[in-house]
């Protein structure tokens, strides 16, 4: 989990980069679908987070975090649906995704669109702790 400081920094980065209101950038808001973030927006958010927290995250790191080091073949099946193993990992980094509810239904390509402000804050918090430890 992320500290209150980091959660504030992430929310401010999202608000600043996307020009959305604080009331829109709630912890549950998804960056891409709810808030309309595109790749350049994501870059802006990550640069702002680095500036305010010192935690450096590259856009490519997001995919790695979501997949958790699980290989493409193990994460998704031949039809691109997230496997049970993949879902179990996702529950850890994106707890809003219920593994039972999404079993056999979640397209691997769509996972990033479920990434929320809170998920990002947790990722920053984890990175900050790893850097400090």
């Amino acid at each position: 989990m992320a500290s209150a400081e980091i959660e504030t920094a992430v929310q401010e980065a999202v608000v600043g980069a996307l020009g959305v209101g604080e009331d829109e950038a709630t912890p549950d808001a998804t960056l891409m679908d709810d808030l309309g973030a595109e790749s350049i927006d994501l870059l802006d958010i990550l640069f702002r987070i680095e500036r305010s927290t010192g935690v450096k995250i590259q856009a490519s790191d997001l995919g790695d975090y979501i997949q958790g080091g699980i290989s493409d073949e193990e994460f998704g099946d031949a039809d691109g649906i997230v496997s049970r193993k993949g879902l179990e990992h996702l529950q850890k980094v994106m707890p809003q995704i219920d593994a039972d509810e999404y079993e056999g239904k979640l397209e691997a390509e769509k996972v990033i669109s479920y990434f929320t402000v809170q998920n990002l804050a947790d990722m920053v918090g984890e990175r900050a702790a790893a850097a400090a430890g």
Partner: protein
Amino acid sequence: MKLEGRIALVTGGSRGIGRGIAEALAAEGAAVAVNYRSSKAGADEVVAAITSAGGTAVAVPGDVAEYADAESMVKQTIDELGGLHILVNNAGIAKDGLIFNMDPGDWLEVMRTNFGGVFNCTKAAIGHFMGERDGVIVNISSVMGERGWIGESNYSASKGAVNAFTRCCAMELARFGVRVNAVLPGFVPTELVEGLVEKDGGKGILRQLPMKSFGEVADVAQIVVFLAASDSKYMTGSLVTVDGGAAAMLGTGAPL
């Protein structure tokens, strides 16, 4: 002094317009990294001229056409001068000739340095600029990028590419606090254009220019200073011609 505390990297700064730009930026208080590819002696001269006038400068080697060199010159500037705020993409070459007579490779060589250099140095510098949310890029293009001239097809194409790239850079980087503009000089007698004026002392060209005179290095350098300073804070994606009216002209208007 408009650029006190600012740090600049000028590619191709050892001679010609690049030298003028390096000295003009330094005169306004900027610390300047003077990049050279092969003219180390020239770069050292520029550094000496700046430091003897009370400024700060270092010579930084590298070929802008090689991305690794672009990265190392940006890094060296930041390491030796303590940062980077202003990138002047000035390095350029020419290989004039009729298309009919050119080697197939002649367009690529010019494109690799004139546009490739701008791309490479821009890419190498913007990570720093975007992190700081502060940066200015000035691309030294040419009025040739906007209008035709016999024998300049490869040069013209490379400068047209720079102009298009300037606009896209400006769009992508504006939200990160980075401004990107280009200066488009007309005819300024330097080594690069020696060949054009040697046949008749330039009379053939002068006849075709509204002002009937060549530009001076300082005419270009002063615009670069303006674009690098906060005086131009609302300008980005602009292509600024400094050409004695050349691009405005369709023909000499005779007979009337």
